[in-house]
């Protein structure tokens, strides 16, 4: 097939699939899928920058997503003044001790040559740092967590509009990426994968267990929305008029005034849900377009060409005087920042932050599938991968249940085999994902929309 035609065909098919869901299930479902597809695409672009441009294997996508989500909470939630009054000082002091100890450690590590003195100093700093932090930290978090534990029990956030968190999430994720990159990027490529796998588990452990920070597994719900609430829409004049105008012919067909009113009420409720989702879709789509545009610019700039040169032949690039470590660090930070943005967007869409829901399969390896099946090195491919794989991930469940029903068709209703088959249907989607990845790697290693090799 002509490579030029691949992208339009792929996206047309994707559109048709989403339209089928719209017609057979409902447009509301279709829009929910689309919103998550867009977020997945953004994550996929982030991973694509790292893998497709830079050849870096980041197995910690989940961690950066969760960092984004955490940022959304910390930026948008109102501050809990009571907690700050009673225990803010303790937390700030422990934070200061923490930062001081790290700085001291770095200083000792860099400047003291004598091994014996260095090691003694390091141990002393760690011991005193831990004692100092424990003195202030433990009592403070007890106080914070005891303040209205059913509703808050944490420090709260900055109380800013949640949309700001998208930017701040990029900064936070980028900073964490900088630290990890500094440590691991000088080593073999596997180490980065394993280190990022580790850091993502730690991030999840922190957001799960540090209740003073974001309530841990008790979740933070009822976050701000950047779009109107359904109930507000249902009560506003302009929205009612809009629904009336759009559905004019349907309403006209109604005979009595009361049935017309009932239909209008139903329509208003349905449309308000769809309208909210459309608002989200609009917002997300603008972010996606912006990130896509910037990534394309970067890809075609001298910087992007240099990155690909490094990816394809490190020795040659190094001989040309390119600093491979610095370039890798840059692309790792940028990619992680984009994943952080997507994480904040995801929490915004959910309206809640649920640390328990972060699983590596769903948030790391699925994203990898999107990049590889979409086409590593091609941003358009990543967007397609994001849509396609997320669509399959969502629709695999009903399809597997249907498939299992077919398999178990001849069996009695309470046959144990039938029960087992239906009960395990949900796991079939893991199988589908694995199979898709293996098939793609084998028969379509460049992905659905392959990277364009520019020749000049």
């Amino acid at each position, binding site marked *: 097939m002509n490579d030029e035609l691949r992208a339009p065909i792929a996206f047309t098919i994707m559109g048709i699939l989403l339209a089928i869901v719209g017609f057979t299930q409902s447009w509301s479902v279709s829009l929910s899928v689309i919103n998550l597809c867009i977020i997945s695409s953004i994550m996929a672009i982030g991973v694509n920058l790292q893998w497709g441009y830079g050849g870096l294997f980041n197995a910690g996508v989940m961690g950066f997503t969760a960092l984004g989500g955490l940022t959304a909470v910390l930026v948008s939630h109102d501050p809990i003044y009571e907690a700050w009054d009673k225990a803010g000082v303790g937390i700030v002091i422990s934070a200061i001790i923490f930062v001081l100890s790290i700085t001291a450690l770095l200083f000792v590590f860099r400047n003291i040559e004598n091994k014996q003195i260095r090691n003694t100093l390091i141990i002393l700093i760690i011991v005193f740092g831990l004692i100092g932090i424990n003195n202030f930290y*433990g009592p403070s978090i007890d106080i914070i967590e005891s303040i209205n534990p059913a509703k808050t029990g944490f420090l709260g956030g900055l109380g800013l509009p949640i949309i700001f968190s998208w930017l701040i999430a990029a900064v936070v994720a980028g900073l964490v990426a900088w630290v990890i990159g500094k440590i691991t990027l000088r080593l073999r490529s596997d180490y980065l994968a394993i*280190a990022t796998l580790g850091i993502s588990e730690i991030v999840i452990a922190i957001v799960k267990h540090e209740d003073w920070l974001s309530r841990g597994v008790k979740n933070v719900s009822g976050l701000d929305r950047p779009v109107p609430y359904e109930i507000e829409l249902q009560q506003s004049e302009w929205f009612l008029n809009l629904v009336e105008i759009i559905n004019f012919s349907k309403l006209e067909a109604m005979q009595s005034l009361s049935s017309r009113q009932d239909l209008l009420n139903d329509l208003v409720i349905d449309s308000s849900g769809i309208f909210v989702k459309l608002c989200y879709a609009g917002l997300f789509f603008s972010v996606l377009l912006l990130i896509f545009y910037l990534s394309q610019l970067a890809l075609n700039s001298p910087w992007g060409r240099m990155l690909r040169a490094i990816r394809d032949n490190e020795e040659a690039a190094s001989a040309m005087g390119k600093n491979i470590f610095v370039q890798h660090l840059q692309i790792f930070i940028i990619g992680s920042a984009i994943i952080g943005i997507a994480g904040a967007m995801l929490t915004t869409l959910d309206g809640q932050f649920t640390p328990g829901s972060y699983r590596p*399969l769903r948030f790391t390896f699925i994203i990898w599938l999107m990049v590889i099946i979409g086409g590593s090195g091609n941003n358009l491919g990543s967007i397609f991968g994001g849509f396609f794989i997320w669509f399959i991930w969502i629709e695999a469940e009903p399809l597997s249940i249907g498939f299992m029903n077919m398999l178990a068709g001849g069996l009695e209703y309470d046959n144990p085999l039938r029960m087992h088959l239906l009960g395990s249907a949900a796991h079939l*989607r893991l*199988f589908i994902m*694995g199979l898709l990845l293996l098939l793609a790697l084998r028969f379509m290693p460049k992905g659905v929309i392959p990277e364009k090799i520019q020749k000049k």
Partner: protein
Amino acid sequence: MENFEFINAMVLLANFVIVPALSYGSQLALATLSLTIIYGVLRFSNFAQADWMSFGTMATILFTWLFQSAGINAGILPTALLALPFAIIVTALFCLLIDRSVYSFYRKQKSQPIVLMIVSVGVMFILQAVVRFIIGPNDRKFFDGEKYIVHALDFKNYFGLEEGLTIKSTQLITVIVALVAMISLFYFLQKTKLGKSMRAYSNNEDLALLSGINPEKIVIVTWIISSILITTAGVLYGLDKSFKPFTYFNLLLPMFAAAIVGGIGSPIGAVIGGYVIAFSEITLTYAYKKFFVYLLPESLEPSGLMQVLSTDYKFAISFIILVIVLIVRPTGIVRGKII
């Protein structure tokens, strides 16, 4: 009395730190060995290894059930030990099947290690689906036989101490089985012709091919050894604690950490790394309050729990050690890339 205080403190430490860490360390060492063997011979980091562990354990549980329903048991030993060899055969066959249908293609193409790593992610998905499909995602205990070798209460009464020492039979079995497995592996690698050719192949593939070593044979042996080690590790872990696919998947990180800490590609390093990670996880998350209460005079008794890190951060520990090793000694404790 002073002496008793000291003995009590030591028994406490043995009961809650040394014995559990020794058995967990042995399980981790076996699992890491299998990861290392794959890495050394086939040259990729196998992300699916933790799920091979689930698969092997699942096969063992199925055989255990079969034996139990047929009335076969091993007396005071868990039935799972009887089931283990059969499960290993099943796991090895499935490993070879996956190798034939998936990995061998990339080997022939001489793909980069990172491609094989991504392929192993695909295998990971498939294995997770297969395990969950067959046995479900829930927690399962499959231990039977005699539970304790030394019971805390008997120990206390016998020695007249305040603290008791419990040694579960699974812990002793773990240590013995792990030792036997490790010794036979090292004997195999160092003394037998096949083991030597495996090491040669791992050291320098082209040279090994020139001297007439059959690569396909090496690959098959590697997968078989890996299945033996990983299934044994999984069964020992499951007997000691319980079997749950998600918990097993989470062992991937400690396994990788142990492999790198020990020196990636080195079997001795894998064993050392396994014990280092296990001991650090347990010593750093244990609350030493009671220990110090025994040892120190009353005026100096600690007020807090005397815990370095809360148990919620077990993951963090393997990672922190990993980072420290990466900074201080990137080659790991035992230098060397070959098995």
